[in-house]
């Protein structure tokens, strides 16, 4: 039996290490470890709650809007602030654009090379590649000349002898199944998507000054003014540019991403039976309308039972640290709700440099959040499953379409391939829905509503002496929650339980594996020295580790003392 280590897991955000035990070509156990910690939680103590979005935004530069959204929602919830409809719509457009762009980058630049062998594309026939492309989409870049140009560029690159970021990969691995033409087509779209993503994200720059890290969120609304008669505000010129960019986003998703996804998936149907994971799925819901109703429904699916959607109660969330490098005043085996969360980092792992972690003891900087003591998977698959099981019309239509095209049943969704397909479905839903938020915004503006901020409680003098609240958000990687306690106008305690904390979590007190760990069990490994299969399943979750290791405890020791005395 061999214990293999993959560290660093590349093509993700952050620092993730996987250790896995392999027996007879199959993973029989796995451990997920986050190896970086910053402690932003401690740093937030005593700061202005109106600044929290700006600080928590730096949890992550990839999902660069999500913590801002959750943070302003948490503070608004605590202070009972209702934001103007336009601010909600602008947030929805920002959220939708983030989801679309992030998913496309994930598919092409972080995940595709697990399925696509770039070097095989050098052998492709450009004419056959053109025929393949034309058979799945009417995307205009599909001529033989076009694919030959891409291939020539690649050949020149390879002949330079300097493969740069493509060096030393698993090219030629027996688990790669695509024909050369499909590899060349996907490689061409890898390059096109690089261009595309930097364009469509300008939606964030127009609405929020820049991306990554748009600087535009406010407790109470948004900082981008609206005035059709000003060149310094959101006017017709800027709105129409956003419309153009959202159209460009939708076109690429419909005509490139989804056809590629289906084409690639059709060669890897065996992965619809691999990588199932914990079987519990949770979604907080997203895209509130003016009345707070969610376009994407909230809920949880337990034990893969699609016949029942459980209502989510944030009070049932607790975090455990029995296998995480933290202390917990509640004692071993006890979890804490985020409001009362605490985090005292205490590294007890091996002294670096090390070969292996002691996985029987503590082995990660990620905590183990559990819902009603259950490990939950979050992310596009959870979002899609909850919506599907809730009878959400648009979601159901796309899920049935994708399942039909691949010729598989709904059970195939509980897998590595299902996770990757669900991300595409989620992206398509976002790409089609986001322009509708823009239309609503334009409609409001044309009626003379320019409000973007609720000013009444901007000044701390208007706040109560103490307040607490939470903000939920469906980030690209899934269910995100921020919890805040405000005291004397300052942050007293701040906790975030983020998607990758759920998914990357180590074992809990009961020994229940986290979703990455559970999904890896049973995965075949053709060559332990080249564990491509591990990357497939781990990447299907789209890990984001800087987010996961934030462990917000603004209160630190003092909180412990209060509880003990």
């Amino acid at each position: 039996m061999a214990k293999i280590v993959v560290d660093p897991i590349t093509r993700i955000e952050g620092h993730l290490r996987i250790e896995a035990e392999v027996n007879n070509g199959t993973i029989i156990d796995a451990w997920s470890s986050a190896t970086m910690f910053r402690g932003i939680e401690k740093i937030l103590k005593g700061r202005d709650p109106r600044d929290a979005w700006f600080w928590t935004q730096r949890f992550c530069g990839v999902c660069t809007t999500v913590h801002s959204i959750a943070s302003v929602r948490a503070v608004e919830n605590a202070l009972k602030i209702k934001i103007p409809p336009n601010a909600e719509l602008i947030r929805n457009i920002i959220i939708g654009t983030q989801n679309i762009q992030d998913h496309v980058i994930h598919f092409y630049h972080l995940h595709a090379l697990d399925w696509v062998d770039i070097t095989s594309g050098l052998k492709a026939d450009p004419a056959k590649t053109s025929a393949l492309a034309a058979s799945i989409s009417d995307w205009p870049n599909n001529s033989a000349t076009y694919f030959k140009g891409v291939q020539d560029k690649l050949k020149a690159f390879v002949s330079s002898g300097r493969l740069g970021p493509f060096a030393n990969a698993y090219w030629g691995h027996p688990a790669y199944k695509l024909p050369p033409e499909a590899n060349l087509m996907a490689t061409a779209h890898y390059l096109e998507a690089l261009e595309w993503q930097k364009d469509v994200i300008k939606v964030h720059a127009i609405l929020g000054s820049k991306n990554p890290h748009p600087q535009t969120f406010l407790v109470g609304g948004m900082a981008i003014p609206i005035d059709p008669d000003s060149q310094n505000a959101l006017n017709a010129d800027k709105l129409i540019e956003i419309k153009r960019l959202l159209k460009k986003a939708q076109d690429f998703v419909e005509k490139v991403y989804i056809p590629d996804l289906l084409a690639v998936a059709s060669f890897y149907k065996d992965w619809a039976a691999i990588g199932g994971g914990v079987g519990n799925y949770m979604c907080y819901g997203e895209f509130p309308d003016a009345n707070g109703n969610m376009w994407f429904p909230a809920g949880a699916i337990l034990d893969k039972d699609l016949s029942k959607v459980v209502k989510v109660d944030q009070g049932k969330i607790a975090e455990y640290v029995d296998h995480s490098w933290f202390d917990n005043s509640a004692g071993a085996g006890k979890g804490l709700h985020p409001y009362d969360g605490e985090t005292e980092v205490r590294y007890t792992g091996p002294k670096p440099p090390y070969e292996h972690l002691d996985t029987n003891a503590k082995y990660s900087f990620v905590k183990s959040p559990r819902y009603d003591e259950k490990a939950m998977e979050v992310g596009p698959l959870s979002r899609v499953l909850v919506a599907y099981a809730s009878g959400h019309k648009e979601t159901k239509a796309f899920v049935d379409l994708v399942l039909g095209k691949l010729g598989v049943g709904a059970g195939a969704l509980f897998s590595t391939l299902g996770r990757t397909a669900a991300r595409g479905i989620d992206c398509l839903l976002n790409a089609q829905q986001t322009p509708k938020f823009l239309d609503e915004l334009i409609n409001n503006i044309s009626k003379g509503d320019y409000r973007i901020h609720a000013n009444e409680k901007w000044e701390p003098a208007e706040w109560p002496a103490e307040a607490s609240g939470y903000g939920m958000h469906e980030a690209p990687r899934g269910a995100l929650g921020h919890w805040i306690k405000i005291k004397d106008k300052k942050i007293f305690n701040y906790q975030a339980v983020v998607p990758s904390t759920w998914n990357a979590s180590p074992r809990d007190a009961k020994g229940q594996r986290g979703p990455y760990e559970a999904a890896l069990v049973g995965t075949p490994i053709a060559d332990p020295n080249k564990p491509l299969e591990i990357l497939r399943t781990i990447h299907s979750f789209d890990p984001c580790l800087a987010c996961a290791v934030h462990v917000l405890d603004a209160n630190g020791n003092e909180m412990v003392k209060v509880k003990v005395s």
Partner: protein
Amino acid sequence: MRKKNDVEHGDAKHGFSDHDCSIGQILRERGVSRRDFLKFCSVMTAAMALPASFAPRVAQALDEVKRPTLVWLEMQSCTGDSEALLRSANPTVAEIILDILSVDYHETIMAAAGHQAEAALDKAIADFKGKYICVVEGSISMKDDGVYGTTGGKTHLERARQVCGGALATIAVGTCASYGGIAAAVPNPTGAVGVREAVPGATVVNLPGCPVNADNLTATIVHYLVFGKIPALDSHGRPLFAYGKRIHDNCERRPHFDAGQYVEQWGDEGHRKGFCLYKMGCKGPATFHNCPSQRYNEKTSWPVASGHGCAGCSEPGFWDTMSPMYKRLPNVPGFGVEATADKIGIGLVAGAAAAFAVHGVLSALRKDKEPADETKED
């Protein structure tokens, strides 16, 4: 378990031979037109704040330079600076990867993982010792022997010493790699510092900002390729071409400051008309960066242009010295050298505002580690 220099996978037959091709020649072979190449040179010349007449010199120098090796290390980072690189337009990230540089190690984009990835790094820094450019993203934890950041079982501190130590030059991208950034904010739980402090002997150029402006990164690299040396730096290690001027002095809303026209409330008439954001906490008067001219996302916008004040993110320690974010900069008695050259607006005469002595503000504020109670000045 891990094998050193384990590079027999995949590209062994291609090797890493040192080719004679210059960047110009490589671009021509890849079908990049001379016209596009010269356009890129012009953009870079402008980014480096050089006169347009330098463009032919930039082109000539790039024609002669070979494709240099670059390795990119992520430490205590949020990957925002890598994302900024992905948004880079002049050149695009595809051009950087395929044509201009040989990016031999970058965890976010590289195909290899685990020990094969580490082997690629080991090989690059061995084969090109003293010749490669290292880019560092994220702060480096020094506390408890650096256990708060490890990759491949090694601490980030150890990796930084090894890789930055052997580099021709290290570019610290973003405020975290430059000065410790958010992780180093009070109380700095992990002992986070920037590269200069972690690796004292290394040649380091700081490109702070949250995130870095990718145009400033490519301009710094091109500056080196063109002139054979790193650009002139200020006392905080920042290139003068990008950080030589105060945001306030280049701000498109400066006339409103001078005229005493301010945003008083989010969404008010002044906000809609693009008045000065000073009263809403803008830190432009104390911040050195080329945001107003270079802007972001292909010059689409920058914070002030989209209605939110500057956060001061390119200044060392800004997380502590420039917060709370919406608190206006305080009056500082006395004016520094640069203030005498400033036009102190009639707003000041009208008693509506103060002007600032930049370095004085920073040192005065730095003492104030706890966020202040007051959130409003007047």
